[in-house]
């Protein structure tokens, strides 16, 4: 009886707080404040460099940079390589996601597991491996007699070469976003289409593809923006061919150093930012027209039978995987095992000296591992905590402000890492008001990571929020659950797979990240990316490869741990689990 009165008593107490128009929701916009601080403020600070000369507003830098034909050539090149690369990512990542999520192919877990690995190899290492692999002096191609003639140009030193590697590098982004989306696809909708007579290609083109278009569009946008800001691949492949993209142009400007360098870099950064924002705006336009909320129950996976074609499909998938994973890894391992760079590897002369050197002689390796691990785990956890409520506000309570934030968070990710790093230095070298400097600490790298990877964590979560049947949340609301409680009990568990996918993406990207920390590190605060780069830069390519191999092994070990723990975790938290 007491409980009944408690239930009844629930009413008058709460109705009295009616003065507020959805009063608890009023708090939600405050979530936007940290986002402003970490991702919009540094950009604004950098933009000021471009439009002020000596404290006076001026358009000189803008006129200089935009009037220069190299700017426009680099812009065209950036658009071309990023665009083509995105198409390649879409083809590879999309095909993998669809086949793994919807069909009855075998060994899905292993397939997905392996597909995640290429992303963990830093882009410049990938580029290095491919260059060593495909050039006229390739050990592998020479062995099978297919190497290009000596003196002929390296085929990868071209726009298409850059695009190919960008495409391979970012295929997992498309894959993860799309797969999180496919998980929410209720079986009934596809079954209904099949009953309506849709079969084979028609089923794919008319039902599955449109239903998954939010994920496809989101993945495409993310792959494009990532490719646009990629520095490692165009640097390794483009600079030898005198082919510059916006990030390499900025790098060259910075290397040249002059009095106007900051101003010019700022304008170039704004140009890249503008392109990225256009891409994202287009993505939102496209998404805005589709409200494909998936009604009904989610959760039961689908198994379209491929029948006789199954083996063929499996062979193709594994062949692609070998090409994009095993081959570059082999190259990397081979380089790590040679006694000295340039020496031809054979069964008689391999050595583990490089591994011994980096692991036991140089203290910096362990330190870098520690730093990178703390930074990437910290960034992943913090960002997921920010992104769950943030995505909720953006998706469910859209205002003009959230639209703006939605576009702006894309900028720190699209800009080349060096640009973000400069922006962070400018802003945090002396924090106004509290007067402390983050420069020279891990803190500045951490803040820069938050800014840079916010969008990676945000998109998958937003994506899954926009696909949930709103009635699921409304039912909880009718049960008396307030905003926080609904987030915790209903939305969070349902968005957990996407949030975990986002966190994993952040972790993996941050673990090997180089371009942001390249300017922000200080002695004792180096990251793995910096370590590998510094070793490579000072000619210790073998040591660099050894560290890279160790990194890959560590990450694969971590992933295996997740895999083993997955049975205890809620369903779908480990993204590659079927």
């Amino acid at each position, binding site marked *: 009886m007491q*409980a*009944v009165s*408690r*239930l*009844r008593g*629930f*009413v008058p107490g*709460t*109705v009295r*707080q*009616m*003065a507020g*128009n*959805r*009063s*608890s929701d009023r708090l939600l916009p405050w979530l936007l404040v940290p986002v402003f601080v970490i991702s919009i403020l540094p950009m604004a600070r950098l933009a000021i460099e471009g439009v002020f000369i000596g404290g006076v507003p001026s358009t000189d830098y803008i006129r200089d940079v935009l009037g220069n034909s190299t700017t426009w050539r680099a812009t065209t090149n950036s658009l071309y390589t990023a665009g083509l690369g995105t198409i390649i990512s879409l083809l590879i990542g999309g095909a993998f996601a669809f086949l793994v999520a919807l069909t009855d192919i075998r060994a899905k877990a292993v397939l997905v597991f392996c597909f995640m690995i290429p992303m963990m190899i830093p882009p410049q290492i990938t580029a290095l491996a491919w260059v060593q692999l495909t050039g006229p002096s390739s050990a592998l191609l020479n062995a099978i007699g297919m190497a290009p003639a000596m003196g002929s140009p390296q085929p990868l030193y071209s726009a298409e070469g850059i695009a190919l590697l960008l495409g391979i590098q970012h295929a997992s982004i498309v894959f993860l976003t799309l797969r999180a989306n496919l998980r929410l696809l209720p079986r009934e909708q596809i079954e209904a289409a099949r009953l309506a007579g849709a079969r084979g290609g028609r089923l794919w083109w008319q039902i599955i593809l449109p239903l998954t278009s939010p994920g496809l569009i989101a993945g495409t946008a993310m792959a494009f923006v990532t490719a646009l800001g990629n520095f490692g691949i165009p640097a390794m492949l483009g600079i030898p061919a005198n082919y510059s993209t916006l990030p390499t142009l900025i790098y060259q400007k910075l290397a040249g150093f002059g009095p106007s360098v900051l101003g010019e870099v700022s304008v170039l950064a704004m140009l890249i930012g503008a392109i990225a924002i256009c891409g994202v705006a287009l993505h939102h336009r496209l998404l805005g027209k589709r409200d494909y909320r998936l*009604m*009904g*129950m*989610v*959760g*039961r996976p689908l198994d379209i039978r491929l029948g006789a074609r199954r083996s063929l499909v499996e062979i193709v998938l594994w062949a692609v995987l070998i090409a994009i994973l095993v081959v570059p890894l082999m190259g990397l391992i081979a380089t790590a095992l040679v006694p000295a760079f340039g020496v031809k590897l054979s069964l008689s002369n391999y050595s583990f000296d490089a591994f011994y050197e980096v692991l036991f002689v140089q203290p910096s390796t362990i330190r870098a591992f520690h730093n990178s691990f703390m930074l990437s785990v910290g960034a992943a956890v913090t960002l997921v905590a920010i992104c769950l409520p943030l995505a909720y506000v953006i998706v469910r309570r859209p205002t003009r402000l959230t639209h703006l934030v939605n576009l702006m968070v894309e900028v720190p990710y699209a800009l080349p890492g060096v640009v973000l790093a400069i922006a962070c230095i400018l802003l945090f070298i002396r924090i106004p008001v509290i007067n402390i400097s983050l420069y020279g600490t891990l803190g500045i790298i951490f803040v820069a990571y938050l800014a840079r990877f916010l969008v990676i964590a945000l998109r998958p979560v937003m994506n899954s929020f926009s696909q949930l*049947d709103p*009635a*699921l949340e*409304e*039912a*909880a*609301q*009718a*049960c*008396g*659950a*307030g905003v926080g*409680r609904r987030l915790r*009990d*209903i939305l969070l*568990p*349902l968005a957990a797979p996407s949030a975990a996918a986002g966190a994993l993406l952040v972790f993996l990207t941050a673990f090997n990240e180089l371009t942001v920390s390249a300017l922000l590190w200080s002695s004792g605060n180096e990251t793995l990316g910096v370590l590998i780069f510094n070793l490579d830069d000072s000619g210790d390519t073998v040591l660099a490869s050894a560290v890279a191999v160790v990194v890959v092994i560590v990450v694969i070990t971590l992933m295996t741990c997740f895999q083993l723990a997955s049975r205890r975790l*809620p*369903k779908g938290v480990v993204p590659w689990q079927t």
Partner: protein
Amino acid sequence: MADINLSRITKSFGDYRAVNQVSLDIADGEFVALLGPSGCGKTTLLRLLAGFEEPDGGVISLGGQAVADPANRVMVNPEARNLGIVFQSYALWPHMSVARNVGYPLEVRGLGRAERDARIAKALATVALEPYADRNPTELSGGQRQRVALARCLVMEPRAVLLDEPLANLDVHLRETMQQAFLDFHRRTGATMIYVTHDQAEAMAMADRIAVMDRGRIRQMAAPETLYREPADHMVAGFVGAGAVLPIDDVAIHDAGRCSVRLGDAAIQARICQKVASNSDMRNGRDLGLCLRPEDIWVDDAGTLRGSVEDCVYLGGRFRLMVRLDGDQILPVYATKRARIGEAVGLVISDGWVFDRTEDEAA
């Protein structure tokens, strides 16, 4: 304490007024059915009540307190209204077991574990789902999911229960059981119930009063028998129950709301709407309608009203004839014996209802 008052509630989606100037007064403990054709705004009205939509204008009050009043910037969150709602699409949480789904409202209210389990068990027993407590909603059939949604709503003993076509997916037998469960629950708790349906038999069987909606408006709100015997306008007369509305132009008023009407060669004694009876302008116009129900019409060769049989259907125990009158109007009639198609028959009409046919355009 849980009487519900809606006053001139309007809600538009873009240019389309899904709910248009709706006023409703529902007494505490009343069982009201919301009946209307698909797309007429029933779900929208329910969502306005629950607080998921904010009205563009008008006032909604629960138990005398305004919970939505845009003019005074009042809008109480759905979670603070303590209304139970059962959604058309179930809205079960796929990541929680059936028991946790059902117990969630209690969890939110901070009830103790033992108390909670006891109530969950009771609610599941009401919908005959005890063996499924530990299943996942994805592993249930459509009807079972619907019942879980009902149990989740009933367990919190809300002050009013909003149900959006809750029995649409159940078979006839289960539907009767569930109807009984609702009625029992209603009697036991005295909670106000608002029940959306487009099944009029269900509405008539369960509700104290029925509100008929059409294109965003409430056409009539009355007890089922009143709705059936005395429809306020053409739409209600056509939508509720079998029968026909015939245009008439000649009415002779008697006392106490009765009148006689000419239909072809026959003179029919009928009841007349008070508004029409007291307004002589309306009476002389040619926009009156006569609503005839099949149980008031007999086949009798002595009948002066003549027609030919268009169709004859056996309903079990009786036949339903469709009889075409001379004026080309078609009347449904119950008969005790089969009739040939095309056969000429005479009809006797014992009762009818005269009302203003133009009312719906004016509304």
